[in-house]
């Protein structure tokens, strides 16, 4: 593979010894500098979720904790008052979870089957069908806000999580179909042809041949959809309100509630709750996350 082709080439092992050492130092120093820059927001937010408010107000955000307490995590999760109710962000966390999981599963399931049809059961004008579906990837949300609000109102799903599940499923199918179709194109057609000669039908080939080959692209779809839907803000802000809002809206409401004292430590903990699930998914599936990026962007 490409990796082995580069084996023989190690730029840091060229030149004299002192030159090698200098080059190596520069490389690691730069990497270290950027790593610090990238990690600092995470460290700062973590630190401040443990510090008492008085200490934050006295010393600012960028300062080590003198006294630490887990209390603010509990407050942020269960008892902090936000938008009239005192349930913390737990309610909005559940909202997002209830919206994200079904939308992820549905859009991935549709995407796999669509990708299978569009790559292995070609028909007349199928590229137009594929083109129409993938246009959904690029369509800006602003073009669909008013129609969605109208449609969800008509079918009785306005201000509901079910409505958001519908919106994210429809939008998500564009992505998953694109991913899966481009992945399945690489499966040799002869495999399908042989199975058809043996009398296997559409679903049998799907179950016996395509599904066993799919796990890598399934993981890509799930990771991509889960993080994308979990982190989404605009649809949630426009199509839901109050107790039905997802966690991203709750975080914005937190900083918007300008009355009285800002509880930075509780806010910091709430922000961590909002960031944790996609971060966790990213850390366990990082390789597939990158693969999703490359296949989504370059193809």
């Amino acid at each position: 593979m490409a990796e082995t082709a580069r084996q023989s080439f190690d730029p840091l092992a060229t030149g004299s010894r002192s030159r090698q050492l200098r080059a190596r130092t520069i490389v690691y120093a730069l990497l270290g500098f950027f790593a610090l820059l990238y990690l600092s927001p995470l460290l700062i937010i973590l630190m401040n979720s443990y510090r008492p408010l008085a200490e934050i107000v006295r010393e600012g955000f960028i300062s080590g904790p003198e006294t630490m307490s887990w209390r603010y995590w509990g407050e942020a999760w269960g008892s902090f008052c936000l938008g009239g109710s005192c349930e913390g962000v737990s309610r909005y966390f559940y909202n997002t979870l209830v919206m994200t999981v079904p939308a992820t599963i549905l859009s991935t399931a549709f995407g796999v089957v669509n990708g299978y049809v569009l790559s292995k059961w070609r028909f007349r004008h199928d590229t137009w069908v594929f083109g129409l579906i993938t246009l959904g990837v690029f369509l800006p949300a602003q073009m669909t806000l008013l129609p969605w609000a109208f449609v969800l109102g008509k079918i009785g799903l306005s201000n509901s999580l079910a409505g958001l599940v519908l919106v994210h499923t429809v939008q998500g199918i564009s992505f998953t179909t694109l991913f899966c179709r481009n992945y399945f194109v690489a499966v040799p057609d002869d495999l399908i042809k042989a199975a058809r000669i043996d009398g296997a039908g559409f679903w049998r080939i799907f179950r016996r041949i395509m599904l066993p080959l799919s796990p890598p692209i399934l993981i890509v779809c799930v990771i991509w959809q889960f993080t994308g839907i979990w982190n989404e803000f605009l649809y949630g802000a426009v199509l839901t309100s109050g107790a039905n809002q997802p966690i991203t809206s709750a975080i914005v409401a937190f900083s918007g509630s300008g009355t009285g004292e800002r509880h930075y430590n509780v806010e910091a903990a709430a922000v961590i709750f909002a960031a944790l699930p996609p971060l966790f998914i990213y850390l366990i599936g990082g390789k597939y996350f990158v693969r999703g990026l490359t296949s989504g962007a370059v193809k």
Partner: protein
Amino acid sequence: MQPLLGARLSRWTPQLVLVPTLAAAFVYVVVFSVWTLWISVSQSTLLPNMAYGGFGEYAALWQSKRWIVSYQNLFLFGALYVLGSLFVGTLLAILIDQRVRFESVWRTIFLYPLAISFIVTGTVWRWIFHPQTGVERALSDMGWLSANVDWITDRDMALYVVVFTGIWHASGFAMALILAGLRSVDGDLIKAAQIDGASMPRIYRCVVLPTIWPIFVAVTVVLLQFAIKTYDLVVALTQGGPGVATTVPAIVVYDLMFERGQIAQGAAAAVMILAALAIVLVPYVVWTSWRDRKQGAAHG
């Protein structure tokens, strides 16, 4: 009769399976777009009124100071955000390409911002840039009393804070794609340049980077798309302020549609966002399909 019908149905299974998706995509892409387009030329105000009203809302939009500022902001933000992310991404990719130890750790660190929402990103950086709580405070506590880092509340500097935060979020993405590109460059090419006595920086500048230019185009297109759609990041970071200093088109759309009750003008603004996307994407799609066809012809 039954098996015959079954056989006929099964012949159409592939197309039938696509029907729900096709219907949804048609409604979502075509009907919704036409709908919004129509609203933009209708007489709608607070509520939709589908009677034709002409292109007056477009004219009004382009005469509003706020919209013009937001479009200018989009150009400046988009350009700096894309160039900055490409620059930092290329630098990081080259550094990681030097067969460093713990490669996957570095990559994980540089890419993790992409997994975090713009809302969280904006919220955290707002605190860091806030004069009373963030960097300025920390610097003055350390003894640098005249430290002046109140960019986020400064009309002339706030947009650069948005650019910086955007680069922090997206440069890992550029790095991942460029690194994949660097790894695909033929090793013999580099060895040949080395034998010719070229230095490392020169090899990258003159041999490696030019061969992966299609990747730079792809990353640019994706990032421009992000830039045009930018909304959440600005909402969480500056809410478009101070004043209108960091207002972007997507914020104007939201305001017109849902705060000011001018949905026709809001729809017109949304159409302008679509137009901006089309200006970026249509040439790219034409170019890639042309390139694919050329490659296909070369192979066949």
